[in-house]
């Protein structure tokens, strides 16, 4: 070393050790890394201080060395490390004030990749021998644990060579640890010991004791805990240790049995979950001797608990135990512990299934079902023991309620048994009895029995071999009869569900038996005309037809069934159009809904898509016939807006799912129909050749409104499908939307235009198209005398939405136009409501289902970019225009995710409070519903405004609008959860004010008032909150 460097080094050492300048450690490390001196030279330079008679000075010397090592342990050679380890191990025997620095240094050394062989063992031996870990401070204890973790990672085999001494050393170091951060480290080490095959030797019990003493963990982190350790984290870390090895079984299982006795619910839950976890790694021999004790505790928890969580944890444990016992391979001399366990369960539960009052039938059944779902063997044993008596009881009991309970219990045994394919169903022996029970219950007149038996029937149908073909046919007959005869809505719903499930598995019986019968019913002539056809009978016939239509939709999941059912439904539409069948408007609409449902169900198979594809030309043809017929003669229901709107989703759902070849075909047919009047592809082609559907002519809305069907078709196609003649189509749509005076026509044209624009590729073509449209819209809007301002506004709104969704740069120009309309005398109110449309999902166009380009964060983005504009506009507006801004604001805020609402609320609070006193009821409802979730977790900004908030909200509880009353009462309810000292001053006033809505004429309002008032009564009252 040169003299100059030597002086530098000595200087740094002096300044750190005697001068107490901590940052010199960093300088020393920097110089060392720069090669000015070596680590051993540093030790030499420290020499005097390290041998000082003052422990503090020695400590300071070691501290410098350790600090430097933490920076540059990576640069050391093996020889240097060897020397340093010997040095540090010696220092462990020194004065206690030095120990923390020694441990720091050792920690740095253990990270060296060149740690010489054998040194890991020697470090640990010294640590375990010379240090009493639990008398160290928190940080040093953590250091020791980290040394262990580090060495376990890098020197696993050396540590395993230490044998059980390593485990013993760990047990001694951790015994008595109390800090949750260190416990997480300790549990981590214990987990590695248990899971990675360290030799526990004779210290198994010690290791278990030192960890299990924390079980069950009860830890509530202090408020504002910066470390973020949760009870859950500790529980899981400890559970992995305790359940890690079957060698703990003899200690853990008695502990669990003991802790299950606890009164604390979280302790119970933890014990049950731990049991579930260990049963999945244990073998039967680990469990055998504890089975009676475990069962007694588990049974008690399920029989007597009031908590659903404890109950389901208990059932899960029973299931896992059974599964564990079922897995085990038996020796010739061991008894079958599965049988032993099942005997216990059956002995305690079976008789409850046959008690005359059926008391405790449910907990018993759940326990038995938990065991029977666990394994094939268990299900065999349980079914054989339980089913005969259940079946016999069902047949001998007479009370409906009891028979229903028995049916539900039976269903529980049928439902979950999922046997693997080779095993035949354990229920095969009981097939016949179960079927006859189901069919007898189906013939009962009691609705509950019918419903439960249909659930059982569905469950039986899911298992192979339980329903023979003849059973399925009988079942279909029963279901058909119920559809035709049972008016109870609950029963109808159950029939539809059951038929839907069975039809998926057994379509043939439905095709041959149910569909023809339903068709016959749908087209049956109304009962004899004249006085016998009273309104109520007519009504009931309609109800039957509605059920038939709903059932047809429900069973149509298989292509073969779709092929049978859709023609029936289409025929209803045709005959409604021609007027041959007496179908009401509602019936026509419900037929449309059924067709839509079929289209939705058909998503999975290509085949069904193909079958259904033909439906589009049929619908277009029908609509066109109706449109051409116009208002002459019989007025077709297909002309009605409600019917057309119900037809749109049939077309759109189908189009959205078409394969690309069919989709392209459909697109070009639809476009050529609407642009060129090409009718060649329509069925029953008897149309005139000169059709121009998109042209505006006087009094011709019946044709122009068909544009909504075009929208359902072209706007829903997958984005890869190219729509032909796009430019011309857009031009004609724009023209129609800007000139037509029929609302459905111009709105649909605007939507269709917007849907296409949203999917158009970005670029100059699109930009110039938007420019052109915006100019036209602006011209109309700016001329106060224009007759089509509403139309221009509608187009503006939809195009804004189309562009906003895809983050198109031009969207700002359009939305700014909308903002400016807020103060328009004619359109202001419409514009304010338009923001609701802009921010919410539209069901018929521009949504994800239609493959539109929708960016996920568009609402937040719009809000961030525009909230300031709104506030400015509000402040600048004259008094009578202010409510429009409030309305727009409440629409926007209402549609924001809650997290964003919370962060933005303080800035908007004055405006929202203002909105509460705005006379518009729509604004009131939407402001209240936006405030209510925020009140559940009130930000401090709200607390300072309580007086205003309470006053205005209470005033709204007597609003003439029911929705406002309900929303305000919900807010008052939420206010009761505010910090008690803040709201106590309002208690008397709120209680007085809430007396009035208790006598509201609407029940829903009364019940909200009662709930809120009771909460406020509990406030500040003994035993309350």
């Amino acid at each position, binding site marked *: 070393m040169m003299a100059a460097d030597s002086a530098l080094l000595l200087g740094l050492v002096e300044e750190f050790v005697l001068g107490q300048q901590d940052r010199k450690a960093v300088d020393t490390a920097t110089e060392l890394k720069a090669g000015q001196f070596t680590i051993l030279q540093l030790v030499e330079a420290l020499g005097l201080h390290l041998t000082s008679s003052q422990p503090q000075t020695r400590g300071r010397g070691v501290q410098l060395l350790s600090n430097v090592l933490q920076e540059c342990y990576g640069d050391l050679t093996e020889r240097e490390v060897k020397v340093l380890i010997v040095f540090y191990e010696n220092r462990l025997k020194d004065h206690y004030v030095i120990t923390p620095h020694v441990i720091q240094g050792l920690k740095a050394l253990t990270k060296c990749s060149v740690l010489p062989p054998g040194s890991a063992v020697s470090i640990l031996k010294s640590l375990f021998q010379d240090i009493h870990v639990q008398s160290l401070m928190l940080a040093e204890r953590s250091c020791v644990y980290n040394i262990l973790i580090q060495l376990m990672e890098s020197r696993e085999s050396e540590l395993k060579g230490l044998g059980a001494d390593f485990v013993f050393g760990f047990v001694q170091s951790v015994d008595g640890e109390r800090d949750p951060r260190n416990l997480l480290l300790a549990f981590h080490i214990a987990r590695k010991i248990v899971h990675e095959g360290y030799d526990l030797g004779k210290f198994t019990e010690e290791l278990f004791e030192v960890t299990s003493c924390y079980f069950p963990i009860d830890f509530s982190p202090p408020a504002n805990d910066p470390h973020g350790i949760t009870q859950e984290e500790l529980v899981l870390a400890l559970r992995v240790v305790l359940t890690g090895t079957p060698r703990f079984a003899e200690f853990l299982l008695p502990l669990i049995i003991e802790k299950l006795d606890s*009164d604390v619910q979280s302790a119970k839950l933890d014990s049950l979950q731990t049991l579930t976890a260990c049963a999945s790694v244990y073998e039967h021999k680990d469990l055998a001797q504890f089975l009676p004790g475990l069962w007694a505790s588990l049974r008690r928890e399920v029989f*007597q608990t*009031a*908590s659903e969580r404890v109950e389901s944890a208990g059932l899960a444990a029973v299931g896992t135990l059974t599964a564990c016992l079922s897995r085990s391979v038996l020796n010739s001399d061991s008894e079958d512990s599965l049988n032993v366990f099942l005997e216990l369960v059956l002995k305690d539960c079976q008789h409850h299934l046959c008690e005359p*009052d059926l*008391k405790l039938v449910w907990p018993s059944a759940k326990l038995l079902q938990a065991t029977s779902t666990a394994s094939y063997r268990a299900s065999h044993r349980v079914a054989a023991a339980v089913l005969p008596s259940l079946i016999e009881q069902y047949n001998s009991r007479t009370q409906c309620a009891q028979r229903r309970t028995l049916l539900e219990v039976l269903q529980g045994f049928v439902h979950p048994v999922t046997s693997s394919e080779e095993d035949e169903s354990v229920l095969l022996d009981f097939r016949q009895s179960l079927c006859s029970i189901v069919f007898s219950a189906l013939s009962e007149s009691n609705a509950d029995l019918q419903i439960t038996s249909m659930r059982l029937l569905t469950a039986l149908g899911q298992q192979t071999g339980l329903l023979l073909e003849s059973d399925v046919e009988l079942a279909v007959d029963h279901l058909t009869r119920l559809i035709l005869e049972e008016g109870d809505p609950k029963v109808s719903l159950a029939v539809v569900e059951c038929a839907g499930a069975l039809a998926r598995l057994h379509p043939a019986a439905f095709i041959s038996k149910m569909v023809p019968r339903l068709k016959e019913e749908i087209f049956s002539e109304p009962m004899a005309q004249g006085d016998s056809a009273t309104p109520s009978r007519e009504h009931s016939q309609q109800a039957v037809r509605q059920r038939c239509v709903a059932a047809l939709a429900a069973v149509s999941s298989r292509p073969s069934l779709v092929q049978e059912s859709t023609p029936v439904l289409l025929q209803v539409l045709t005959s409604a159009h021609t007027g041959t069948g007496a179908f009401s408007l509602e019936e026509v609409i419900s037929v449309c809904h059924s067709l839509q449902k079929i289209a939705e169900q058909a998503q999975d198979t290509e085949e069904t898509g193909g079958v259904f594809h033909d439906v589009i030309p049929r619908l277009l043809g029908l609509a066109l016939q109706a449109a051409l017929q116009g208002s002459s003669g019989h007025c077709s229901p297909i002309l009605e807006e409600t019917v057309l709107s119900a037809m749109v989703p049939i077309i759109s759902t189908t189009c959205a799912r078409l394969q690309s070849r069919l989709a392209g075909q459909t697109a070009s047919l639809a476009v050529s129909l609407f642009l060129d009047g090409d009718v060649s592809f329509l069925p029953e082609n008897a149309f005139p050749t000169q059709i121009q559907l998109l042209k505006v002519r006087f009094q011709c809305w019946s044709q122009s409104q068909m544009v909504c069907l075009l929208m359902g078709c072209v706007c829903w196609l997958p984005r890869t499908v190219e729509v032909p003649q796009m430019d011309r189509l857009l031009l004609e749509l724009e023209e129609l939307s800007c000139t037509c005076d029929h609302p459905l026509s111009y709105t649909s044209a605007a939507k269709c235009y917007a849907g296409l624009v949203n999917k158009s590729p970005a670029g100059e073509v699109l930009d110039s198209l938007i420019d052109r449209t915006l100019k036209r819209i602006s011209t109309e809007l700016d001329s106060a005398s224009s007759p089509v301002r509403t139309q221009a506004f509608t187009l503006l709104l939809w195009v804004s939405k189309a562009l906003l969704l895809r983050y198109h740069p031009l969207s700002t120009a359009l939305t700014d136009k909308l903002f400016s309309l807020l103060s328009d005398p004619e359109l202001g109110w419409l514009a304010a409501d338009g923001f609701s449309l802009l921010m919410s999902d539209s069901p018929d166009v521009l949504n994800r289902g239609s493959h539109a380009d929708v960016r996920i964060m568009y609402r937040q983005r719009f809000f961030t970019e525009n909230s300031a504009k709104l506030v400015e506009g509000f402040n600048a507006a004259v008094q009578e225009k202010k409510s429009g801004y409030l309305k727009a604001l409440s629409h926007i805020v209402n549609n924001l995710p809650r997290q964003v609402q919370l962060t933005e609320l303080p800035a908007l609070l004055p405006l929202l409070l203002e909105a509460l006193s705005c006379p518009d009821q729509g604004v009131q409802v939407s402001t209240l519903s936006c405030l209510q979730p925020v009140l559940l977790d009130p930000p401090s900004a709200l607390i300072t405004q309580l007086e205003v908030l309470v006053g205005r909200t209470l005033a709204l509880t007597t609003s003439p*609008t*029911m929705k406002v009353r309900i929303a305000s009462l919900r807010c008052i309810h939420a206010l009761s959860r505010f910090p008690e000292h803040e709201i106590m001053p309002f208690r008397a006033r709120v209680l007085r004010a809430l*007396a009035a809505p*208790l*006598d509201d*004429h*609407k*029940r*829903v309002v*009364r*019940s909200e008032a*009662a*709930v809120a*008032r*009771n*909460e406020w*009564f*509990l406030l500040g*009252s*003994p*035993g*309350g*909150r």
Partner: protein
Amino acid sequence: MSGGARLENANPLIFQRTGERLQTANDEDEDVADPIDDREIFDLIRSINDPEHPLSLEELNVVEQVRVRVDDQENTVGVEFTPTIPHCSMATLIGLSIKVKLLRSLPERFKIDVHITPGTHASEDAVNKQLADKERVAAALENSQLLEVVNQCLISNARTG
């Protein structure tokens, strides 16, 4: 009540809870007045907690809809409740909880009568008398220990809302 005390009826029969009342079109129609009916009163009291068990009065069959009578025109409400066992010492407390819940939840115009289902409790008359006496009810609610227990019964739990 308190965790350590022995329960009088440790293993009661548990009954199913009624579902939420189904909403009808009339319920949403602003112009239709909904009269206060038996079910509405029953919905107010069915979720009251039993003082002894972590169960509701409905689950223990202490209250049933058929034992509730309301006359919206005449401003009267009558509720009969059935203690789980004839010697139940909690009968007065249960009656008081029902009464307080109704007092807090119904318009002032109603006269509220809460009494034990005839023939189901050993000291039926005494309990009924206490519950019918306005002043004794008021005095009971002045007693903060009693009020605490009543309030505990009335705290809505997450299950029943």
